[in-house]
Structures are given as C-alpha cells and as structure tokens.
C-alpha cells in the first residue's frame, strides 16, 4: 500500500459521513412535502442508500477479499424479504374475492 492511500480512506469516510447527513436532511424535509403514496417510497429508498453506504464503506464490505461476506448479507436480506412479502401476500389478499 502506498502512502497515497493512507489519506484516501479519510477522504472517503468524511464523504460518506457528509452524504449520510445530507440524506437524513432530505428525508426529514421531504416528509413535509405532499407526495401521496410516494412519501414512504422516497424515505425508504434514501434509507436504503444510507444503509448501503454504511455497509459498503464503513463496514468495509466493498473491499472484502471474497464474495462470502456479501453473500451473507444478500441471503439475509433475501430471507427477510420472504418474511415480509409472503406474509403481506396473506394480508394483502384477504379482502379479495
């Protein structure tokens, strides 16, 4: 590793930190604007971007030497989605006839 890379982690960390704060600010402000059903979507998309920034850069998932750790994350999110989506499938279709 050259000396050049010694300072770049810092730049990256502070950039991510700034992005996270901006994202929080946007989320907060957007909540007060009338977007109808898109309010929730916007908030969740920003939240997911923030979570990805933390996971990839702060938790060093991006630089991980093997794909295993990313597989752990992806599998977990997948099964969480199964829980959410399939139970919603029940609640969402109970009123159908």
């Amino acid at each position, binding site marked *: 590793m050259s000396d050049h890379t010694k300072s770049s982690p810092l730049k990256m960390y502070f950039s991510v930190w700034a992005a996270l704060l901006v994202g929080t600010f946007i989320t907060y402000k957007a909540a007060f604007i009338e977007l109808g059903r898109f309010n929730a979507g916007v908030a969740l998309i920003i939240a997911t971007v923030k979570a990805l920034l933390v996971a990839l850069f702060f938790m060093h998932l991006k630089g991980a030497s093997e794909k*295993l750790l990313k597989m752990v994350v992806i*599998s*977990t999110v997948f*099964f969480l989605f*199964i*829980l959410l989506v*399939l*139970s919603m*499938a*029940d*609640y*969402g*279709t*109970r009123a*159908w006839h």
Partner: protein
Amino acid sequence: MPMPNGPQGERENYLNKEYGAGSWLLTTDHKRIALLYLMSITFFFFIGGFFALLIRLELLTPAGDLVQADTYNKLFTMHGMVMVFFFLIPSIPAVLGNFLVPMMIGARDLAFPRINLLSWYLYIIGGVMMLHCMLTGGVDTGWTFYTPFSTAFTNTKIVEAGLAIFVAGFSSILTGLNFVVTIHRMRAPGMTWSRLPLFIWAHYATSIIQILGTPVVAITIVLVAAERTLHLGIFDPKLGGDPLLFQHLFWFYSHPAVYIMILPSMGIVSEIIACFSRKRIFGYSFVALSSIAIAVFGFLVWAHHMFVAGISVYAALVFSLLSYAVAVPSAVKVFNWTATLYKGSIRYDAPMLYAFGFLGLFTIGGLTGLFLACLGIDVHVTDTYFVVAHFHYIMVGGALMGYLGGMHFWWPKISGRLYPEGWARLAALIVFIGFNLTFFPQFILGYVGMPRRYYQYPPEFQVLNVLSTAGATVLGVGYLLPMIYFLWSMRYGKPAPDNPWNAAGLEWKTPSPPTTYNFEQEPVVTWEAYNYEELDAPHKEEVPVAR
C-alpha cells in the same frame, strides 16, 4: 507420532487427558462438549418421553379418567416443548455435529471453542428454566403458544416457558454460527467443497436455518411476553390486533425448524448407507445441493400450518404449491440413497438397520406431508391425529432413527469401545416394530376423525388407541436397550480399533477415542469422499495420513 492401539487408558486421549468436574465443565474441546450435550439431551428425552407415556396412558380409555382436561393440556404441551426445543433441535448437531464436524474436515476444533461451551451453558440454563416452569405448573397452550389464548386467557407460565425457549434458541443460533464459520474457514488443505462428507453439507444447511430462522421465533416470544405482561394488543383482536400475525411469525421459524431436525439425520444416513453398501453415494452433488435446497425452500412454506386459520385463499394456494416443491429435494435424496444400495455390498449391522428404517419411515412421513399440503385434504385432516402421525413419522421415524444409527456408527470412535452388535440389532428391530405399532394406527385415527389434543374420544376409536399405546411401550423398551448397552460398553465393551467399519472419512483416521487435538499433523486431502473402492481394494492405495 504413531500411537499404539492398546486398551483405553494406556494411551492419552480426549477422555482421560484430564479428570475432574472442572476439566469437563470448563472444557473447550468440541468432543467433550459433545458428550456434555449427549448427557443433557438424553435427560430431556426421558422427560419428554415421560409426558408421552402419561398421554398414551390417558388415551387407553375413551373417557378422560386419568387426568383432568387442563392437566392433559399441560401434558401434550410439555411433551411437545421439551421434545422439540430440548431434544430434537439440539440432538444431532450438538452431539454428533460437535464431535464430528471438526474431525471430518481435518480441523483441531471448531472456529469458536469458547462460544461452543457457551452454547451448552445457554442450553442448560434454558433447560433449568423449563424444568422449573414445569415443576411449578407448566404451560397448557400446546407447544405452538397460539394467541390470544397464550397472551390473554391462560393462567399458566407462558412467560417463563417462553424465556426458557428464548435462551435455548440462542444456544442453537451459536451452534449454527460456529459450524458455518468452521466449515468455511477451517477445512484442511485439499478438503474442497466437493470432497466434503455429506454429513458436513447437511450440517451446513442446518446451520443456515438455525442462523436465519431462530431469531424470528425469538422476537415472537419477546412479543408474546410483552403482550402478556404489558397488555399491548398486538395479537389481541379485542384491542385491534391479529392472532394470525403471531402464527405467521411463529411458523416462519417453526417450519424451517423441522428441517433443522431432519437434515442432520439425512447427513448421517448418507454416511451410513455409503459405508454399509461399500459405495460412493450415488449422485453426490445432487444430495449435497438438495440439502441447501431444503434449507432454502423450507423458508418459503410456513403458512401451510395455517390453511384453516383464516389466511386468504390465494395465499393458501401459493403456500400449497411451494409445499409441494419443498418435497422434491427430499425425494431426490431418497432416490439417490436407493440408487446407492443398488449393486452395493450390503451389510446389516445395526447402523444400517436404522438407516433402512429411516428410508421407509421418512418416506411415509414425507408422502403424508404431501397429503397435508393439498388444501382439499388438509381441510379434513388438519388438527387430527393424521397430522400427529405425519410429524412423528418424520421426527421419530426419521430424525430419531438417524440419530440412533449415527450413535451406533460413531460409538466406537467416541468411546473407544464396541457396543454389543446382537443386542443392537435386536433393539433396532424392537424400535421399528414399536414405532409402527404406535404411530400407524394414528394415521387411521386421524382419517376417521379423531382430533388431536383431546383426552376423550368416541368409544369406537379405542382399539386403535390401545394399539398405539401398546406400541409406545414396545418403543420405550427399544429406546432403553441402547442406553443400557452403551453404558455397559464403556466399561465392559471390547476396545475398538481405529476404523472398525473400514469407513471413509477423516474422522476414521484418528485413534479411537481420539486425542484432544484430533490430528497430530494437519491432514492433506488428495482423495474424493467415499473412496470405498480404494479402501476395499486388495492393495490399499490411499495416501497415508501421519498421525
């Protein structure tokens, strides 16, 4: 450093390396921890079995004359809770998995030995809590804790039982975590994924379920406890809650939990069938990947326990279809095991008898699962003895038989002694006969309409119930026999050679019993799994492993 094969005691091994309670209670040796688990789960098996005995005694007569209705509710609840959470789920992974996983991959121990010991202590703490709960009144909701009965109506000790299971659940999670990291990180050089014994693949898949599923039931228990103590209303219809939400969250874990119970047993069956047919398992990759497929698909089917509970018909259709799909990987295994037997050189030692028993009984249990996956049939037989028979065929006829087979197969390695083969074959036969006598009549009982969890029934059902109870007695004898002769063998059994079965696998290249660190030098693997042709060849070609 080659060690002479003398009778136990002449040579240092993991059993005689240190004596005293402290050396056992503070051990980090995966083999000692496995034995600690063996004693604990056997104890809880007796407790669960005791409740089963009382249930079957009550059901000898149509009237409710042995115990009161509330007591009967407690009996089947405690039977279920103890057997599921304190026997079946830990049994194979915590005993045989702990003992064998490091050895099979050529490692000295699991990745986290101290967490392994913590797992056992968590299990014990949960177990003590459950014992205390039972001794001070127990629980009467069924092992499934359905709301709002469990949260708003019953007066029994839900919170305590729930906490006991919560603690035991973390034992399960940590075991799973340990296995996954071990299998990824600690394999010996040359032990590639495609050379792993199928026992390892099975435990890997099991661990995935333990890791991802158990936390959901943990939070469900927290919610039930919170609702019960703080009257929150999350599951109470009177307060706007939905009882079905509990069922969704509960079964999201508890269905995959049954795969936690069966997958390790399937791993054992693969090892036994290969050894006693002297053949590589037919379709190794299919069997390996089917374990992963079972783990994945197992998470997609939970609402088939809720078909008549009030979920939407459209959701029920989806879950029914997925439940048919989950049977496919299990069937793949059964076909591959059968193909392994074909033109094999079959030996009928006790482990193989249990494997045969597994093949037949698991198939019946699995097929009846398909009956239940069919909405039209399920409407009629759900909550009847048909379901009870179905899951006992899988859990007892399947998982428990595999466990017993595995205990016999690896007993020489674990204890350094041979068990008496004649008695073992007799016991296997008694178990098989007793099991079928106990549970086959229950299929019929369910089909003709006897509900489960009832302590009274119409007189015309009595004959079948009496048969079932008689079978249970025979089954009990069948279970007692191995406990007696295993104990007997520890003192009087013939000393075991390193590889009494001439089986394939790294664990057989260690002394019986093994030394604490398993391998003096890390093995280097250059052969495929189940290399029985080489093992049985007149001139042994296998690469010697220094020990």
